[in-house]
């Protein structure tokens, strides 16, 4: 039998909170590991009563949902935390936000609805906005058109097991170009696939189909994540939790 640490088992999770946070400005260069460490420390600083896993090195109950790559900014990163005591979600949001460095900003915090399913199940696509300094909007528009007109655009992607060919076209549900002179802006909705197709891969595809080669590194922002509906809109993954809360507050009010 495995050895057990002395003392009582850790208290159970009594409340699950779901957070949306942003990584902005220079902190877009933070990696997932960097953010995870910062979040754990912020939870301690903010004195959030976390639930812990059992065992010799107890871990706070935190589950992350697909992090944006290092170098990409995001307005829509999601995480779920388990608390050992109930807290007001808005108070947790404010305390956490104050405990994180500026640039990692906690935007929303809602209580997970009972039986509402996992957060990960509510995310299958992301909306991206990519600024391309030094690229003219017309150039980009032409490249996007060529890309959308293709059935398959194979690009080489660096993975853990070396270079791998992936199709960057198929997961792109929509793509459009905009921007001003000297800085084109690409917006697109990309479905989650394995291995993941990220803005870099789509840009590699634009280089492949239209020889679009930005003179300086593009800046990507993940604007939203969620389920892609038939109309091409990425739905808010916290929507169902929020709806459940309003409903039950309404019921309480009626009593």
């Amino acid at each position, binding site marked *: 039998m495995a050895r057990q640490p002395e003392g009582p088992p850790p208290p159970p999770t009594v409340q699950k909170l779901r957070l949306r946070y942003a990584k902005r*400005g*220079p*902190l877009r*260069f*933070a*990696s997932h*590991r*960097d*953010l995870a*460490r*910062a979040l*754990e*420390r*912020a*939870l*301690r*600083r*903010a*004195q959030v009563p976390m639930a*812990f896993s059992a065992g*010799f*090195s*107890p871990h706070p109950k935190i589950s992350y949902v697909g992090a944006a790559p*290092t*170098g990409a900014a995001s307005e829509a990163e999601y995480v779920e935390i388990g608390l050992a005591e109930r807290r007001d979600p808005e108070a947790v949001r404010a305390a956490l936000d104050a*405990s*994180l*460095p*500026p*640039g*990692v900003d906690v935007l929303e915090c809602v209580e997970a609805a009972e039986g509402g399913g996992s957060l990960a199940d509510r995310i299958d696509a992301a909306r991206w906005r990519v600024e391309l*300094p030094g690229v003219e909007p017309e150039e980009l528009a032409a490249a996007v058109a060529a890309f959308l007109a293709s059935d398959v655009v194979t690009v080489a992607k660096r993975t853990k097991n070396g270079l791998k060919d992936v199709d960057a076209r198929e997961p792109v549900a929509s793509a459009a170009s905009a921007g001003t002179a000297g800085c084109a802006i690409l917006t697109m909705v990309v479905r989650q696939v394995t291995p993941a197709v990220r803005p870099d891969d789509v840009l590699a595809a634009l280089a492949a189909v239209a020889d679009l080669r930005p003179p*300086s*590194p593009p800046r990507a922002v993940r604007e939203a994540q969620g389920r892609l509906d038939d109309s091409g809109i990425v739905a808010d993954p916290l929507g169902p939790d929020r709806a459940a809360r309003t409903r039950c507050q309404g019921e309480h009010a009626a009593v």
Partner: protein
Amino acid sequence: MTGTTRHASGETLYPRLEPLLAQVQKPIQYVGGELNAQVKAWDDVAVHWALMYPDAYEVGLPNQGLMILYEVLNERPDALAERTYAVWPDLAGLMREQGVPQFTVDAHRAVGDFDLLGVSFATELGYTNLLEALDLARIPLHALDRDESHPVVVAGGHAAFNPEPIADFVDCAVLGDGEQAVGDITDVVAAWKEQGRPGGRVELLARLARVDGVYVPRFYAVGYGPDGAITAVTRTRDDVPARVGKRTVMDLDEWPYPKTPLVPLAESVHERMSVEIFRGCTRGCRFCQAGMITRPVRERTITGIGSMVDQGLRATGYEEVGLLSLSSADHSEIGQLAKELADRYEGTNTGLSLPSTRVDAFNVTLANELSRNGRRSGLTFAPEGGSERIRRVINKTVSKDDLVRTVTTAYANGWRQVKLYFMCGLPTETDEDVLEIAELAVEVIRAGREASGSKDVRCTVSIGGFVPKPHTPFQWAGQASAETIDHRLRVLRQAINADRRIGRSIGLRYHDGKPGVVEGLLSRGDRRVGRVIERVWREGGRFDGWSEHFSYERWTAAAAEELSAFGVDLDWFTTRERTQDEVLPWDHLDSGLDKEWLWDDWQEALSEEEVADCRWTPCYDCGVCPTNGTEIQIGPTGRSLLPLTVVGR
């Protein structure tokens, strides 16, 4: 680049830096924005300090010394301080290509815009990184080539007690504690600027040279004799001190810094918060420069420590607190401190730790107490010398039996992993002294298996070459050659592996002898060594503390070429034993230690005599207290820690 006029605008370089960051490894280390970082408006203050740790961000960020100065300076309404670290070659290459100069991580301002560049040297292996940073900052490498528009380059930290090898590259060096010194320097610079910079850079430096603890190398001339040795170091103006003394902060409770330690987003080498529980050490270990140059002992009180731990945890969210000092178990209130801190943080997943300790059964009890809230993983002891004889030479006496007993106690108390630190190449050492380490480790494992009733006990022997340092009794010693070190490490490894059944429970971690030789050259070098450093840097030398960047061949070739004109060589600086009458390059820099006392202690080392600790026996006149007007400050205070409402409960 545009024009030649320089204006210190303090403008951000970030827009130009950002595209480069997308192309380098671990860009997060260059963006700043750490928790508790500060950015002040450039034009609101008179004096601008850039503070540098000349190593990678992950090593430099946790440095306490720099964190303290950063806070102390930023608390002043008339000053601001920002931080800068060594940039890795990938970014340095892009910066040169794109004309982006060395920048601070806080507001990404050009280091060249600042009034002062303060560089902290805990180790001499950062010297090439200093040159790289100066070059990237477009500050002339040589202090004499700088004009009023360039920052004043100030070295500090332990290595600044012999800054002669970098004398050509720095404008001044600060000896000792920096908390008050940086304030005095700021006052001088502010007044000089306010007055319209009278007398230019030379006048500013002359004023700085009159600040207690500040050494300005250009005002001192070094003479050499036909044998290559120094004949004298003389001042060239009579308004600067003939010998420069060190700074000592008394009453540490008045200086509770860092109050809000920096917490990086990037991973660092030291993922915990540290609270310095005392400064200085009078144990008298003869190899230890830190112990010699930081005398006397000044303790923080138990309540002072308690509030720093509490405030620091609240400010950072760290899970572990290291109780830092040169010999933490010696704090007069350590037992009570350990117990009361453990009580206070019981059930909060807050770990408490001590750095390596002397070998002492009491230290096991202490470690038990501190680990009450966490797991008993590893315990570290530092006997430093392999045999009882060599431990008398270095004045770190502990008998073999006591050593085995202490380690066995640790295993019996549930610790599974014990790490033992040793040095090799100590004065008078023979192969036999080092081979005793193997015997010791074997005995420790045998006794440990018996005491714990388990085969699952491990002992790691960590060993490195000894480098003689200035201002220690061993400053006259001949350093062991790289060959000697490597030979002793080889026989030690064979001895440990001789009995496989026990040997597999013993780990051996060691550094080969070559980097130690270069460290030796830089530690006890004089101004002539500056040419070697510059050549090594010109040929690509950087990050010498990192084995993947360090090139021994580059150093030996540069030393041979640059030193031969002076009739000296690498061995002259390293393996050569000095005589009593030799003028040492740092003799005009006064740590307070009486040179005669040091020499006597060196002779006593050779005859294997011990010296006691002046905290518990009468003063033995090392010279420090009377020279500096300081005194030992220790408890116990009789106070105790009150329970708190704590973080993370």
